[in-house]
């Protein structure tokens, strides 16, 4: 890298009047901006010595043109001093702590030296404590221990009035007192005499911000519209002038004081226009002015908007759409975007020819747009000059060529809550206008294709590109560092497809297998099949994606389903159990069905852990393609008719619901009679609610069970739910069983009319249907009251989400701000930017979560993959990478 200047530190201090006068290039005396010719007035608000904002003019201080001259401070000499509002609190403290006559702090010399000792020893600890204590002590003193003067009671009337024994203290007086304070006493008030003297808090001379800080804008009409700060400064100059005239003209004391207060008001609002207790200064239109504090504060303020948030070039944004043919670490970039984005490439021996070709290809797509010569010259390559530029191309020149296939880029979707919200992808230039990504990477981005837009950034030097490739690449983010499990993996149709393909009875003919593999673009694995055979099982086809020496067995998602099958149904249990136990030996799927646990869960995790990210990426890519192809191969549809239930099922559901409703009414009867046994610690009303919710919840589950039984295992919605592809049995229950209890605030619905939910029910009615229990299914359709209750529950959900995003967003901002400086040091301690140790060993074991199994370090090889017998250790050699095995002992 080129040597560069770096800011080493920043020091904050208060602007002293001397400094202000010294720095100022002019005194603003005229409250106007431009004369009739449109030129800045001398000693006006836009004086040319304070910088330029008009093209063509030159700064009278530095001679710079617009953009060259950064601007210079001016000043306004205030006729009477005023308090600087931002320091008003400190002014009060200093007033209360010091003697009105001699200016010493109202503490005895012993006390002072005691405090000084403390602060000198450990200022960063005792400083604030000492200040608080000294303030309390000094304020309470009624007599000065140094000169014996009686001290009046100081009152601070916010925001900037001070009273002593109910008499107004004017800034002039305050200033005079402050001037007496000794430098050596200042530490008691938390002040550094080098940086801040108390009298500086009272402004005698006001610094005027450079013109460049408050540029005026020219409207289409040719009128100028001045910045808010300029308006404010104009007010100050005007009032200052009036105050001068009043005093000179011998106006009555009262009117002088009024004008003085007005000046105080304007200077105060120049600094902060949101002071509590005084009305904000307004623009002619009635809009409050945006003054200095408002410019800095908050989300749209200078700090958060401009300083912490940087804008970039070499980026693009457009909607995204899916493309299963891309690998998960690729991104399809439209030609229109690739033509615009450039990558700088230094000319060296090895790429000179290629770059010349690119220059000569102008203006068609893969071409070089600019050439940077060593001397800092920048040549735009055009059709007319391309031959000349190509001819003159030298090593060490930098060529800016268009984005091409294989370039590493950063891809991002907001909100960027994750590190995985910005990942490295390889560009693949494609026709049409959208970015294209593989569907498997939608999870970390939390993206879908209903109109989502995403951003792309092109790294502009080899160092950045290398970091994108090594540290940010999507293939290196397969395992989440939040929980140590795969975050990228097959989902939805990939799962359904694999689930269908790997069923026990799937048998494909040779031709079918060819077609399947062909469409899935898996030719490179085809040799793993024994093509002498006439037909293949689905499991055999899946097996070609597995590494040949991979052995592993696990239980898939059906384990949850198994628990719901009654013990009596032995045949079904047996079948499910067989499907549940997945056994892979030497790269062959022997038994079991591949579901979400396989293409995006444990199996995937083991493959990644054992064979690395590259193999993991290949596996995900091919599983996704095979799954998607398989699902089209078998056909996978759903229509309203698929949730049809036979009449007897409907009757059964109806009966079940009626039963529980009856049960509830029995409970209600008991309750009204006062016979209900309350749950300990709860009232009878609460207990009743609990019982009712329990009964109705069970009843809904039961109707779901009935529905599930009649729908059968082959029903595609059931397939999706059980394989973990999408949806749940609950969704199915609601579609064809019953929707169930609607809740607001975690309770049955009870609000609405007096003592009842809607006018359809009697007062005080506690029945399920009057309190938001929906017996109908979505398919059957909801009754008007049911529909209304459902909408109530739905509305709460929406409100909840809206509030939640705001709350969790703020939480995340706070968390990031509190923890962002923490890094792992070279000795594996966790330290902040000042070197303070927060943890002696990161996470107590120094382990990277993304390299673990759900947070655990694998200690036995079998934990990664099973199948290898322990006997093998007898012969097998070990590489000595670990460096601590004693080989002599090994031979005993």
């Amino acid at each position, binding site marked *: 890298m080129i040597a560069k200047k770096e800011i080493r530190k920043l020091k904050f201090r208060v602007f002293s009047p001397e400094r202000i006068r010294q720095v100022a290039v002019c005194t603003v005396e005229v409250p106007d901006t431009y004369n009739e010719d449109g030129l800045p007035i001398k000693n006006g608000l836009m004086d040319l010595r304070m910088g330029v904002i008009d093209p063509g003019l030159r700064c009278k201080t530095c001679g710079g043109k617009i953009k060259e001259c950064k601007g210079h401070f001016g000043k306004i000499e205030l006729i009477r001093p005023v308090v600087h509002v931002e320091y008003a609190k400190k002014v009060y403290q200093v007033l209360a702590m010091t003697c009105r006559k001699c200016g010493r702090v109202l503490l005895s010399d012993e006390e002072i030296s005691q405090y000084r000792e403390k602060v000198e020893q450990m200022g960063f600890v005792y400083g604030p404590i000492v200040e608080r204590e000294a303030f309390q002590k000094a304020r309470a003193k009624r007599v000065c221990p140094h000169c014996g003067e009686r001290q009046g009671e100081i009152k601070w009337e916010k925001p900037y009035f001070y009273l002593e024994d109910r008499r107004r203290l004017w800034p002039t007086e305050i200033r005079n007192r402050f001037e007496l304070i000794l430098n050596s006493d200042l530490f008691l008030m938390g002040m550094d005499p080098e940086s801040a003297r108390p009298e500086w808090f009272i402004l005698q001379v006001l610094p005027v911000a450079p013109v460049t800080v408050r540029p005026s804008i020219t409207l289409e009409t040719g009128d100028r519209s001045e910045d808010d700060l300029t308006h404010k400064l104009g007010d100050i100059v005007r009032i200052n002038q009036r105050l001068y005239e009043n005093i000179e003209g011998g106006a009555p004391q009262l009117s002088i004081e009024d004008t003085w207060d007005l000046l105080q008001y304007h200077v105060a609002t120049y600094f902060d226009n949101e002071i509590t207790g005084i009305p904000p200064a307004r623009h002619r239109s009635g809009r409050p002015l945006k003054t200095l504090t408002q410019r800095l504060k908050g989300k749209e303020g200078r700090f958060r908007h401009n300083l912490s948030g940087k804008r970039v070039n070499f980026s693009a944004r457009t909607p995204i759409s899916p493309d299963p043919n891309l690998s998960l670490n690729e991104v399809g970039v439209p030609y229109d975007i690739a033509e615009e984005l450039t990558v700088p490439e230094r000319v060296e021996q090895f790429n000179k020819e290629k770059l010349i070709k690119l220059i000569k290809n102008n203006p068609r797509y893969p071409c070089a747009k600019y050439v940077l010569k060593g001397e800092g010259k920048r040549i735009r390559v055009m059709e007319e000059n391309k031959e000349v530029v190509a001819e003159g191309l030298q090593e060490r020149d930098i060529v800016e060529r268009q984005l091409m296939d294989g370039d590493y880029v950063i891809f991002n979707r907001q909100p960027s809550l*994750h590190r995985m919200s910005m990942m490295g992808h390889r560009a693949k230039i494609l026709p049409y206008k959208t970015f294209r990504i593989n569907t498997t990477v939608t999870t970390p981005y939390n993206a879908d294709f209903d109109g989502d837009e995403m951003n792309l950034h092109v790294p502009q030097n080899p160092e950045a590109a290398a970091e994108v490739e090594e540290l940010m690449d999507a293939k290196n983010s397969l395992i989440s560092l*939040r*929980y140590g499990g795969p975050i990228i993996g097959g989902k939805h149709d990939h799962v359904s497809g694999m689930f269908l393909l790997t069923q026990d009875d799937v048998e494909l003919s040779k031709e079918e297998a060819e077609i399947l593999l062909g469409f899935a673009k898996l030719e490179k694995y085809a040799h793993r099949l024994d093509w002498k055979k006439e037909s293949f099982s689905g499991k055999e086809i899946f097996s070609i994606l597995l590494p040949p020496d991979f052995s592993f067995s696990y239980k898939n998602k059906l384990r949850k389903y198994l628990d719901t099958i009654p013990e009596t149904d032995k045949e079904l249990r047996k079948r499910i159990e067989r499907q549940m136990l997945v056994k892979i030996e030497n790269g062959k799927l022997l038994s079991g069905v591949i579901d979400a646990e396989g293409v995006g869960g444990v199996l995937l995790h083991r493959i990644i852990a054992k064979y690395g990210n590259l193999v993991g990426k290949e596996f995900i890519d091919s599983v996704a393609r095979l799954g998607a192809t398989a699902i089209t191969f078998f056909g996978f549809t759903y229509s309203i008719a698929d949730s049809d239930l036979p009449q007897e099922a409907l009757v059964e559901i109806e009966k079940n619901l009626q039963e529980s409703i009856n049960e509830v009414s029995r409970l209600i009867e008991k309750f009204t009679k006062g016979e209900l046994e309350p749950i300990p610690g709860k009232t009878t009303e609460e207990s009743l609610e609990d019982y009712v919710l329990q009964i109705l919840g069970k009843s809904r589950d039961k109707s779901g069970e009935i529905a599930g039984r009649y729908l059968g295992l082959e029903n595609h919605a059931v397939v999706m739910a059980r394989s973990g592809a999408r949806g749940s049995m609950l969704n199915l229950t609601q579609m064809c069983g019953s929707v169930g209890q609607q809740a607001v605030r*975690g309770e049955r619905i009870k609000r609405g009319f007096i003592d009842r939910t809607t006018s359809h029910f009697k007062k005080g009615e506690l029945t399920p249907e009057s309190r938001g229990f929906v017996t109908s299914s979505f398919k059957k359709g909801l009754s008007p009251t049911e529909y209304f209750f459902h909408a109530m529950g739905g509305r709460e959900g929406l409100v909840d989400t809206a509030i939640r995003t705001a*709350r969790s967003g703020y939480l995340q901002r706070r968390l*990031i701000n509190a923890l962002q400086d923490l890094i792992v040091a070279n000795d594996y301690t966790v330290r902040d930017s000042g070197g303070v140790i*927060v943890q002696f060993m990161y996470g107590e*074991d120094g382990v990277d979560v993304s390299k673990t199994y759900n947070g655990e370090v694998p*200690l036995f090889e079998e934990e990664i993959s099973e199948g290898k017998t322990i006997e093998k250790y007898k012969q097998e050699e070990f590489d000595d990478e670990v460096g601590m095995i004693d080989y002599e002992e090994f031979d005993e």
Partner: protein
Amino acid sequence: MDTELIDEKLREIEGQMPPLLIDKLREKLIGCKNLNEVKARIAWALRSYKNSRITPGEAVGTLAAQSIGEPGTQMTMRTFHYAGVAEVAVPQGLPRLIEVLDAKREPDTPVMRIPLEKEKVKTREDAEQIAKKLREVVISDVSKLKNNLSEMSVDITEIEPQYMDDIEKSLKKFGNYKRYKDGFRVLSTKRSIADLAKIRKKVGKNKLAGIKGIRRVMIKEEEGCFVIYTEGSNLRETYRVKGVDRNQIYTNNIQEIYEFMGIEAAREAIVREAKQVLDEQNLTVDIRHLMLVADMMTLTGEISAIGRHGISGSKTSVIAKAAFEETTKHLINASIRGEEDHLTGVAESIIVGKPPPIGTGIVKLGMRLTQPAAKEKKKSKARTGGVADGKAASLETKKAKANEEEAESRGKQETPKQKKTSKN
């Protein structure tokens, strides 16, 4: 396998692996058949551990923050009731997580779980006896309070008889009261209605029995043990009650744990509470992230919140504080104190346009520019000369040289050593 042999082998890798993992490994190794297998397995485990170590420079703070913040969007807001179970409704999900990280003095619903000693408490009656001792009884629980405007007094009526004497005892501090046969009358000294309301509130809150703050108690039987769940929490007092299993008592009031048991316990409690909230929402967040947050919150020896009143407010950098919240306040204070900002943190670096000292940003690499080509020398000088003067440039190259030489010599020393160890 002989445990002694295993221990001996494990001792060899002490210091190369965290003790916790070695212990885990020891347990697993017991099933091994021969020494070779033990050695091989230890070697494998050690390699596996080394492979999973974190990379120095990793921005673990940001990782932890993101790992906790990101699932925040998926959490529920609602207070959760366990249907049918006699337990207290505790705020769950996001509100509770925020509560924990805010280091609130007292949670919205403080609760305690108090297991009772197995040997001493055998029957439900025993448990009820203890529960009675715990629950705070105040005057308004056992009587009715009424403002009596004609007498300018607060009347206590409908008192449960067994509390009469207790009430009288507690009323002594009010001084001005009268006892009747079935009630009390507390007179207002100021004789104003506002005073009456005040007195009524004060009298009503007067504790008669139990432990302050514990409003409700529930007894449950868990695994043959009686457990008392309470609404309201008071660790210090509950700890003193006989029959309570002191080793298992728990409260969700972290501040209380800190005050009673110290900062290490508070740190455990933060991790535990946060973990519990996330687990209940079925969100898996690795414990390492939570530990880092808890460590940061307890770094100073006191619990400091995540946010402007805690960690972010006590940062050393003025700019970092100003960029977070309360911008002007921090700038003004810095100017009064004449503070300096050394720009070492992430936020400051970004603001002034330096690469932040995080990840690859902590690596400083010195490189000696190739000597021979005279042209190059000129060029490099010209390049650096633009900003820094010639002296600085030559100094830089000197430094780089020294660095490289050092690295070289170190490399030479290291390589033969490595070979030796491997040939052993």
